[in-house]
């Protein structure tokens, strides 16, 4: 089993304020600068809102991955506690579990 979820040490979170980062979808079709996410917002909620902005289906769960480290962000942890502001690109990826049928 590969578990790539881990905490990333960052500076203490500044209350309030917005957080800037670059995001794209997993196919590279959509890319955008995101500037209006409030610090403290859980990564999972950010992922779902980005899916809506990129006009991707919102009836499936989405996750964010840090391109520079390959780390999947934890849905329930604030985004700004997991990545550095304006320094990394996050990739929006559907949460899928690939595998064959067990006969």
């Amino acid at each position, binding site marked *: 089993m590969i578990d790539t979820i881990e905490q990333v040490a960052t500076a203490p979170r*500044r*209350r*309030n*304020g*917005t957080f800037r980062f670059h995001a794209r979808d997993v196919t590279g079709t959509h890319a955008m600068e995101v500037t*209006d*996410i*409030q*610090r*403290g*917002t*859980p990564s999972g*909620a*950010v992922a*779902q*809102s*980005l899916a*809506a*902005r990129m006009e991707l289906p919102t009836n499936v769960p989405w996750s964010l991955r840090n391109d520079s480290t390959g780390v999947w962000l934890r849905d*329930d942890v604030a985004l700004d506690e997991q990545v550095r502001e304006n320094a990394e690109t996050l990739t929006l990826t559907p949460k899928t579990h690939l595998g064959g049928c067990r006969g």
Partner: protein
Amino acid sequence: MNPDDTPPNRSRPKEAWGHALASRGFTPAKDGWRRAGMSASAEAEWLTLEKAVLPRPAGGTKPDVERRGLWKHVTRGRSQRLIFDIPASLLSREAEPGELPATDVSLPEALVDWALASANDETPQGWLPPDSELVAGWMTPGALTVRAGCLVRQGELLLEPDRWALRFPILPAIPRELPADRRLALDLLAADAQSQLRMVRVGRSELPDGPALVAAVDLTGAPHSEFLFLTGLEGVTQVVAWLVETADFLANATTVLRALEVCRE
């Protein structure tokens, strides 16, 4: 259970309010109770305290969203009043352990004291905020996150020695270059929402990124009640979900909005 064992607050909320208001100098009137320019009326769901107000002097007073307590300006027709709404259901439930510190003051009296003190932007004497762990335990995970379409907003629990409030940005930063008619439209949107929904205040406030449009419920001075807190949380999250897309649209100066041009003419 013997009916005589039922606490008076649970069986007769209106009587409980009446006792509390009378003990604080209110006298019965035709439509409720009155005391020096303030009136109170008890409905099935809410106790509403009310003061007549004059139009606010431009820039001279503290915005509603930054005041302590629940007093807020509400527009009805052409008149504007100050309203303080308390959910009446507070009286019909048992307090949980850790809530409502034991004092000689009954819950209805404590609520009236809160309203009276916050009318002067003060807190009842000796008031302390609840323990942060207690309040955190009242909330479900993600309770401070509101998502509406492609927008997501993160609220804050403000818990300081002299502050107990919930604050959510509707617009985290109002663009400084936003035309005056768009700012006016945002102000009207905020005023309308504030008039329509109880407990919640909506308006401009200064956040770290600059002026923002926020929704807030300020419980500073209130008894430590889970029900009161969760009622406020539900109200403020509903307001944010209701307004956020409209506010975001109005704050986007690159979009053309003919309706405002018609109003200007």
